[in-house]
């Protein structure tokens, strides 16, 4: 039976840890410039209905590094979607051209629909403001590599927690690993109620909440920053929130010396450029980790390991 990754809950903690063992091997292969042919003859379809740099390119890089091929689109222009084709029909067709599908779509729940109409594995590359489970995998992988374990960590998740889909999947998975969390967001961009309820009801985790990340920055081992999701807000709302929080070197003076700063990227202005020089700023390393982690995921879902 095919396995999809639509929701981070589709993977158990054990499955995630197994993926990370494979990701280590993939990383080693990349570092050794080793040519892999695990996915020789296999095709990944990348259907990106929304803009993307890292997610799409790292999926494609991952498949090429596994010896496979890639087809797909990076915007709906030029595909039959612009003629009004339904998601179900597009998926039915593309599933017959490929062995695995990675999809990003502006509507919440779209990856679930895709999984229902596909006979090949579907990977959610972001569905509206809902979830972004593969970003969570590489976030978790980065945290684990840098901090050694999830035990006794305190993770500050900050920014647009309402529409920031990466924060939703991350919060759920961190709760499942028993990690302590605090949330900081401007008023109006707080973590949705359904996520808060999932954390408390399913995992008995009740994060501390504030409107200013300065309240928590001194106690955080991981400082996870997200941008304001302009594409899900009206222009006036975006302007209201745009400059409401900025992580600067000055702010990081009160952070732990061994804290790490992560960001799913793209960054707009929520992390000042001077922070890039800080050894605690690991967001580009985090972005690199997307390749070995996605290699591990593709190979696992295709059953070629």
């Amino acid at each position: 039976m095919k396995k999809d990754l639509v929701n981070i809950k589709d993977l158990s903690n054990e499955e995630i840890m197994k993926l990370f063992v494979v990701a280590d091997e993939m990383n080693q292969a990349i570092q050794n410039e080793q040519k892999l042919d695990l996915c020789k003859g296999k095709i990944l379809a990348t259907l990106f209905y929304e803009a993307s740099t890292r997610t799409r390119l790292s999926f494609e890089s991952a498949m090429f590094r596994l010896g496979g091929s890639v087809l797909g689109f990076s915007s709906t222009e030029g595909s039959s979607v612009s003629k009004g084709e339904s998601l179900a029909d597009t998926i039915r067709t593309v599933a017959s051209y490929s062995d695995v599908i990675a999809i990003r779509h502006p509507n919440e729940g779209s990856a679930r629909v895709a999984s229902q109409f596909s006979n090949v594995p579907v990977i959610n590359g972001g569905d509206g403001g809902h979830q972004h489970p593969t970003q969570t995998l590489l976030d978790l992988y980065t945290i684990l590599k840098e901090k050694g374990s999830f035990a006794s960590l305190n993770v500050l998740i900050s920014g647009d927690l309402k529409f920031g889909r990466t924060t939703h999947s991350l919060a759920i998975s961190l709760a499942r690993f028993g990690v302590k969390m605090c949330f900081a967001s401007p008023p109006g961009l707080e973590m949705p109620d359904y996520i808060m309820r999932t954390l408390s009801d399913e995992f008995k985790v009740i994060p501390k909440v504030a409107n200013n990340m300065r309240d928590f920055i001194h106690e955080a081992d991981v400082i996870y920053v997200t941008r304001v999701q302009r594409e899900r807000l009206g222009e006036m709302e975006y302007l209201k929130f745009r400059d409401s929080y900025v992580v600067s070197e000055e702010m990081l003076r009160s952070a732990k010396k061994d804290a790490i700063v992560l960001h799913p990227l793209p960054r707009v202005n929520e992390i000042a450029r001077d922070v890039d020089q800080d050894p605690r700023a690991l967001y580009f390393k985090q972005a690199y980790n997307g390749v070995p982690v996605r290699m591990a995921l593709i190979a696992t879902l295709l059953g070629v390991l």
Partner: protein
Amino acid sequence: MKTQMLVNGTVIDHLPEGMGLHCLEILKKHLQGSETLIVFINVPSSQQKKKDMIKIQDFYLDDATSTYLSLLAPHITINIIKDAQVVKKINPEIPFEIKGTIACINSRCISNTEGYTPEYDVQSKEPVILKCKYCEFEFTPG
């Protein structure tokens, strides 16, 4: 207060105070327009202090609509009347899962934008909280 007796049809009883007209709005699309109906508002009730009630001549609710109404008013009773006798009394049970019946309130949910049949897990029956299986939004129907 004396009202015309229902010979054949449906009585929707124990609607919470203020729900009668809202319920009628929901039923409108199922009615032919020619049925005789009465909406009772602020009826004294031993259980609810005050309740609303609807009587509709020659009309019977389907299961989906009964479920929908029970989501809005978990304690309703639906009485089926034939030859002026109550032949069936239904207390619609809220199921653990719901398919169709009600649209997701999240306008960005794929079930709304592309018209896939909405599906929900019932998180709580009192108050009713539904969780969309597509977008995971939780809401109380109203």
